């Protein structure tokens, strides 16, 4: 993810921000269009929509009527245009299981996913940065070594297995924390949130920690590398020579320079965190979008699958665009390149 961000900036060279932005937007539109085509072809050519969309109990006459009503007798390109029109209007069919518009079913699950993802990002910041600072300032201490070894595990262990172990230890063996569901929720702004109640908050701890694990490792390593790079630099030595207290040197001078990569990574990883919540939500039975899509795939609830895929691609193209813009705005090297 980090590399792709840098690589994407690399081809900025020379052209102005406006041209670049337009090119990015066109590219984003193409990606979304390509996705609609892939999803449409996947559903309509590889699978047989007649079998999926029409009840098997229907007789021949009913089938023919349904085929005509759904437009399945039309040529493929016409069907695709129809599908595209539906996407633009936000009409992606009704869920077979919930008997509601697919988009609405998904949007209802969005807050649960966002809540979990934001909690995970917060954990990774508030655990990762201090741990990385410590490991960077005392690189040879045993705790630092343990933290670094732990971060390798955080990178390489499949997160679903870590989730199972969290359940096994903290929910089954120790019985400290609940392991499934959102717990008690409280309405705020028309949406139910878990973090507002004590019970809901306790329910969030295990899944959010599980989801945060990868990012904690990543941010810890980034911070450590940043500290190790900054400590012997001239500006830190100067700040110390001035007689500033270590707390101020680290808190202001070192931190400022660590924040650029960390902020970028946090931005980039928000999308990944949302994607990986598919796994975490399934393990902890957290009723978000991720669990919904897995359930829908298993129940062959096609409208939900299609709507979810379209929505998540849109979300990702959006996040990538914003991160690119932020990157161009934050990194002085990119700005300088544009001034030529």
């Amino acid at each position, binding site marked *: 993810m980090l590399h792709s961000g840098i690589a994407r900036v690399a081809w900025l060279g020379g052209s102005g921000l406006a041209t670049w932005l337009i090119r990015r937007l066109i590219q984003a539109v193409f990606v979304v269009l390509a996705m609609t085509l892939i999803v449409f072809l996947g559903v309509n050519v590889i699978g047989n929509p007649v079998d999926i969309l029409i009840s098997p109990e229907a007789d021949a006459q009913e089938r023919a009527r349904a085929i005509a009503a759904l437009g399945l007798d039309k040529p493929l390109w016409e069907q695709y245009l129809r599908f595209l029109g539906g996407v633009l209007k936000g009409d992606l069919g009704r869920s077979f299981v919930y008997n509601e518009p697919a988009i609405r079913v998904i949007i209802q699950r969005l807050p649960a996913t966002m809540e979990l993802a934001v909690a995970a990002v917060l954990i990774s910041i508030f655990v990762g940065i201090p741990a990385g600072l410590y490991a960077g300032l005392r690189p040879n201490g045993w705790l630092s070594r343990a933290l670094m070894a732990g971060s390798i595990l955080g990178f390489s262990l499949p997160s679903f297995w870590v989730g199972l172990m969290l359940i096994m230890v903290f929910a089954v063996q120790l019985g400290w924390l609940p392991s499934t569901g959102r717990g008690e929720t409280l309405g705020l702004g028309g949406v139910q949130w878990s973090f507002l109640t004590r019970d809901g908050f306790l329910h969030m701890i295990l899944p959010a920690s599980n989801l945060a694990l990868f990012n904690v490792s990543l941010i810890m390593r980034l911070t450590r590398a940043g500290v190790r790079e900054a400590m012997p630099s001239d500006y830190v030595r100067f700040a110390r020579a001035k007689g500033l207290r270590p707390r101020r040197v680290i808190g202001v001078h070192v931190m400022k320079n660590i924040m650029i990569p960390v902020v970028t990574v946090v931005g980039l990883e928000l999308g990944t965190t949302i*994607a990986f919540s598919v796994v975490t939500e399934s393990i902890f039975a957290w009723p978000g979008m991720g669990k919904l*899509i897995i359930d829908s*795939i298993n129940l062959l609830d096609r409208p939900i*699958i299609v709507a979810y895929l379209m929505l998540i691609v849109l979300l*990702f193209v959006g996040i*990538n665009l914003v991160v690119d813009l932020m990157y161009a705005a934050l990194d002085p090297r990119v700005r300088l390149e544009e001034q030529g």
Partner: protein
Amino acid sequence: MSAPPLNAIVEKALPAPEIVAPREESPARRLAIEFAQNPMAVVGLVVMLLILLVALVAPLIAPQNPYDLAVLDIMDGRLPPGSVGGEGTRFVIGTDDQGRDMLSGIMYGLRISLFVGAGSALIAGIIGSSLGLAAAYAGGRFESAVMRLVDLQLSFPSILVALIILAVLGKGIGNVMLALVMVEWAYYARTARGSAIAERRREYIEAAECLALSRARVVFRHLLPNCLPPLIVVGTFQMARAIALEATLSFLGLGVPVTEPSLGLLIANGYQYMLSGKYWISFYPGIALLITIVSINLVGDQLRDVLNPRLKR
């Protein structure tokens, strides 16, 4: 009296320098020695080879054929580790809900996990490296098109790409491998292009081009072998990633079919019993998965250090 030849004098004055003929040391041997300097990596390699061996000979050493329904006894279901079944068989690490010996299940599961992981890493490696090499060698529009595709691919998280493919195509070993290849090829392409760009300015490529060798020959016989080291390192890590991702997908019920349970599916089967304290059905396949992934990563880490010329002291 003629003076003795100059070199005779020199030879007398200086004892013939013992020609420290660089002992005939093949590159492979040198690599092996350097690799062995890290004991953890050696442990990783040994464990990895052991796992591979177990997977290969599973039908010969497994206490039970977990697919043979005739030997399964539902009465032996969910026995804890160390129990003895109805017919006197001993289940070292317990049984699953079908009365299947977990140890045998894991051995057979390893076969599928490793096959899917290594197979997809290899296919992705061939496709990705070829595209990357071709991009570096051809340059121009083709290169920017390939690299744009790589950037695009890498800006989507792996799990999402796999999810899209499996949601559209449905589950099955072939589809899982396709998904893994789609997720991984970009890493190889980027690495191959990077090292090919550095290599193609070297004299030997120029020499090969001067000999008017065909493009394919220059790329595959001259360029490729010299770009291999970083690709091998990427391949090792990608194999571990593929195994982990396959396990994740199978755990979610999107991966391999129930008839061919990989480690991920074994873990999923035990998940529902975990809450009632019957931990072993999920726990031991998980440990097997863990050991596999960590040992491959250890090997990869050391390979990266050994094969990277910049890190040479």
